[in-house]
């Protein structure tokens, strides 16, 4: 018989971040792919105009701002969040986390038992940090293309990407990396929900996870 405690892990802010980030990414995927490869033709001349590309771009930019807002929120929480949300909790460089990292990898390879650490396991946490960094590159390349004519974003974008074409290539290439990340993320979340005891999926709605009673 294992006893569980229901522990509050994720603050309201973190859950707001997660869902704003997730939904904005979904919208950005769809609109971004349309902008890359406009599949449906807009109206042919003569039929009523609907400015399809302009509207899709508008939605893309709007979603982009939500994405950036969410990103900033997460960076705030990385430093000032609760103890599970701070980056110090899950970076794998921390001595405590090195055995945990191997343990997690073993669990994913079906070679060990799934363990709960409260917040992110060090493997997931590291990937999330990389995704956050990637998101910064995504936001900067997007802002550079949106504001090409001088000012902060143009000069920041220029110093990183040099040409608009390179910014566009990065933006597009990262899109595919995000897709791969989202696939793995969704799969592993479901996997964790099946093989682990935490109730990971409900956790990102309620903020609460189930941890073994002896711990914490």
């Amino acid at each position, binding site marked *: 018989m294992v006893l569980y405690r229901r522990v509050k892990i994720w603050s309201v802010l973190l859950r707001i971040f997660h869902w704003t980030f997730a939904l904005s990414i979904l919208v950005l995927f769809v609109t971004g792919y349309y902008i890359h490869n406009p599949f449906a033709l807009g109206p042919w001349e003569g039929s009523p105009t609907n400015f399809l590309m302009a509207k899709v771009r508008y939605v893309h930019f709007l979603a982009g701002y939500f994405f950036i807002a969410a990103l900033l929120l997460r960076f705030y929480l990385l430093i000032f969040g609760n103890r599970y949300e701070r980056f110090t909790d899950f970076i794998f460089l921390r001595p405590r986390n090195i055995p945990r990292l191997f343990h997690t990898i073993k669990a994913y390879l*079906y070679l060990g038992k799934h363990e709960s650490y409260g917040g992110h396991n060090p493997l997931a946490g590291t990937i999330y940090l990389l995704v956050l960094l990637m998101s910064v590159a995504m936001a900067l390349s997007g802002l550079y293309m949106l504001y090409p*004519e001088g000012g902060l974003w143009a000069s920041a974008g220029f110093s990183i990407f040099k040409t608009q*074409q390179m910014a*566009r*290539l990065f933006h*597009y290439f990262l899109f*595919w990396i995000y897709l791969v990340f989202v696939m793995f993320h969704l799969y592993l979340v479901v*996997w964790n929900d099946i093989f682990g005891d935490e109730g990971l999926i409900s956790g990102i709605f309620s903020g609460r996870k189930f941890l073994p009673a002896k711990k914490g």
Partner: protein
Amino acid sequence: MSRLFANGLLKLRRRDFLKAATIATAAMGLPVTMVDKVTAALESPKRPPVIWLHFMECTGCTESLLRTSHPDVATLILDLVSLEYHETLMAAAGHQAEENLKRAIEKYRGEFICVVEGGISTKDGGIYCKIGGRTALEILQHVGSEASSIIAIGTCAAFGGVQAAAPNPTGAVGVRDIIKDKPIINVPGCPPNGYNILATIVYILTFKRPPDVDALGRPKFAYGRRIHDHCERRAHFDEGRFVEQFGDEGHKKGYCLYKVGCKGPVTYANCPTQRFCDAGVWPVAAGHGCIGCTEPNFWDQMIPFYEHVPGVEVPSGQGIVGKAERIGKFAIGAAAAGIAIHAAAGAIKKATTKEKEE
């Protein structure tokens, strides 16, 4: 140099002169009230000495400049400046030409404007481009160090151009990679618009200082905006009306060329407003996408010309160049396969181990 044109055949008529001055004023983004000031500067008898150097290039910049018709930009430019040395135009050849260059540098030390056309080879001491026994590198370092300022005409002089395209066998670079201590104005383009060359020179003559430039040294009045942001087909873009294939219905109707690789969205230049060939035409107007010729490394970054994202070199692979899309789809496929195997392993494990009730 204007001696060449003294036969009167190539002399500008007053009307054409004013027209050109007005176009140059407009190209610089100045109001019409400035035309008088510009005209006065152009008419001043003090013409700045110019030494025009050719390096690794096709001479297309000079050629396109000379082939404009009315008003004759080339004549105007050549009338504005006192051209002391220009390999394509001067009558002298061989040792006499070398002598001219030496004399011009001595006479106008620190005063002359150096115009450079063409890229400069740097590999193996720059031996891949030699003129009169000296490498382009030596000539540029020598002439450039004596000049008051340098105007790099064309993408080759500005960024290395086609010779700098991968694998860049001669180590070609632009002027700005060699000369660091002089004001360098880049007027890129393949070829650059003659009016942008004219306007740059006129700007210097009128205001006695170089124009404002962007981070790549390009005058902001000509290279401050992206093609896409003032293209006449932009309305079709926003409408979602695209040419799918050259020659299709959309192409005949003049729709946006985005899907056939137009680089307008990533290219800074004034082609849609300044236009070419005196006929008010430019590539997109003629039904072909922009190829991004004013951007650094455009031969590498803007290809394939008929697709809008370039191929990506897989770094560890042996020169495998794939479309980002193909690489992306491959990654997605590999990820899906990985997930499927992992899930199957999990399902087998679940099925073979008995779960205890907790």
